[in-house]
């Protein structure tokens, strides 16, 4: 037990929390941006998986990690557009579209992987590249903090930078204002000539980009290869993180960090005498508890202002 406590308060534990938070954070931000415009994107898991593969394939084909990332992002954009077209033009239920994207991704990535590499497990035979890790000058020399904050993958910094960028986008740009108006009162948006469908297309594309960076992180940062189903439910956890994040980028960063910490904890607690399965349950159980607490508090608030009985 002491070892565990010592581990939890070590710098490398906190380092791993940040590392584990990265993909969840990116996907949760992707969920946030669509949610703020009144669209629920549950296809994040699928978008992440597809772009994880795209990043690896792209970096191997163009011999550039950066172009690999771009290729992953293009994949995310395309999938975002497909979702938008299906939901907004064809008027399919957005939840069903999301499920369809997820179903397609888990099989489709294997199909493509097999067609390219002749391998269904992973992309070892592709000489793919990874995004570099970055040591932040000055900060890396600060004793404990340096070990926690410095030395992460570039995409991790992009993830945390995205919190700021999304905050900037939502609260400090004309587009952000329009997104928030569309999410809250689409009639109000229409009445001043804002094209609601265009805004929803835009957020699905942005969401696709964010999720695709999260996917690329899985295969080009966290790992250096693609392997089947490697996203392993992180897109779903991100939905939960978004639901608990009070609808703001900073709140979502907080809830994502909690999930990252829960995940890191679950990893470290495996050395204890508890059955592994219960340790593995921690992040998911935490989500449900969080969801209940959040829903209760929201209902109380609504009762106060008299929206619901």
């Amino acid at each position, binding site marked *: 037990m002491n070892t565990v406590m010592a581990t939890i308060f070590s710098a490398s534990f906190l380092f791993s929390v940040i590392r584990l938070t990265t993909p969840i954070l990116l996907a949760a931000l992707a969920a946030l941006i669509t949610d703020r415009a009144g669209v629920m994107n549950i296809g994040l898991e699928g978008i992440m998986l597809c772009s994880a593969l795209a990043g690896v394939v792209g970096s191997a084909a163009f011999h550039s990690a950066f172009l690999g990332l771009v290729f992953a992002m293009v994949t995310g954009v395309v999938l975002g557009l497909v979702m938008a077209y*299906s939901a907004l*033009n*064809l008027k399919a239920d957005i939840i*069903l579209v999301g499920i369809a994207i997820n179903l397609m991704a888990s*099989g489709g990535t*294997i199909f493509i992987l097999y067609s390219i590499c002749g391998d269904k497990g992973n992309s070892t035979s592709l000489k793919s590249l990874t995004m570099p890790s970055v040591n932040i000058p000055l900060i890396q020399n600060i004793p404990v903090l340096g070990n926690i904050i410095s030395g992460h993958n570039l995409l991790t910094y992009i993830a945390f930078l995205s919190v700021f960028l999304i905050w900037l986008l939502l609260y400090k740009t004309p587009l952000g204002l329009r997104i928030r108006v569309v999410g809250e009162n689409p009639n109000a948006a229409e009445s001043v000539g804002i094209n609601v469908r265009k805004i929803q297309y835009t957020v699905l594309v942005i969401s696709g980009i964010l999720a695709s960076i999260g996917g690329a992180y899985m295969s080009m940062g966290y790992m250096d290869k693609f392997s089947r189903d490697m996203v392993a439910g992180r897109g779903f956890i991100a939905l939960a993180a978004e639901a608990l994040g009070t609808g703001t980028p900073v709140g979502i960063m907080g809830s994502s960090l909690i999930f990252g910490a829960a995940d890191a904890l679950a990893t470290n607690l495996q050395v204890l005498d508890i059955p592994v399965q*219960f340790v593995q349950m921690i992040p*998911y159980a935490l989500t449900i508890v969080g969801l209940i607490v959040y*829903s209760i508090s929201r209902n109380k608030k609504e009762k106060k202002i008299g929206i619901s009985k």
Partner: protein
Amino acid sequence: MKNKQSYSSKTIENRFEIFRVIVAIGISLLVALLLIMFVSKQPLNALKWFLAGPILTMRNFGNVLELCIPLTFGGLSMAVMLQCSQFNMAAEGSFFLGGLGAAIIAVGVKMPSGIHAIVAILAGALFGVVLCIIPAILKVKWKANEVVSSLMLNYIALFFGSYILQYMLMDPDAGYIASHTFPNSARLAVIIPRTGVHMGIFIAIIMVILTYLFLYRTKWGYAIRITGQNENFAKYSGIGVGSTIILSQVVGGALAGMGGATQVLGMYTRFSWVSLPGYGFDGIIISILAKNNPKFVPLAAFFLAYLRVGADIMSRRSDVAPEVVSIIQAIIVVLIAGKMFLDTYKHKMIVKNSQRQVKEEA
């Protein structure tokens, strides 16, 4: 003889729905064919096995039928829940727990043949209910989003099931994580020799009929459908909306649980699931294909099973990976769920028809 008749608009809509489904399936198959052409060195060979493989031998056809069984249960489960407009993904977890529940009874209790299997399946249904009811209660009580809570619950169900399997059911002499073998009294007998088609197919057929009757012939099913269609109307009519939502999830969970139990007792000799089986998510595809109507669920299940078995045979006989099916499925779901897909065409049909009607009257 009149060459062209005018129809009531309902007839047009019905015919159009069939037409829409056919077009959607056609488009998705076309995409699949293009993909196969693209990746395969012998595309014609691959195509042959893909499309004709399942009916070339009785055994292959048996594979289609045996896959129909869990898919039918998954489809029925989602049909009941979607009829109430609830996106409860816990059917997936319920399927898994249903299998576990059946295994516990099969391995842990001694009973005479026949009764044993029935009790095991009922236990599976109960396990399924316990899981599926949670998101419903959270939603009715606190308006917690059922999509998020049910997705998370699936993982919890999986880990809980693994724990039970590992610490209570495991056969240490097995070379992998698996329960002790099921006694014959609990197993569902194979009914077509040399295939895996088992008694479960009758249970599935019975459940299709019962679910259809439940949804369309009982007061509970009526309440579920009305609530799903228009909550305000249901409330105005005096229907208890909250309890109806919960009821739909209970029935859906029970069907998923039964499906898991039937699958485990029919297709396995031991319980050895260590990951979610996927039939709950498949159920969504099937339910969408079947327009959430239990009557059409077996048809949709058969279609999907045919595709999958075809793809498996193709992968054994050629160089195309069977995962191509997942792309077909996604396209079908989106096109069929897309209310506006081919809508302009439908509109034209109705307008033309009404013009014809006017002419006839004149």
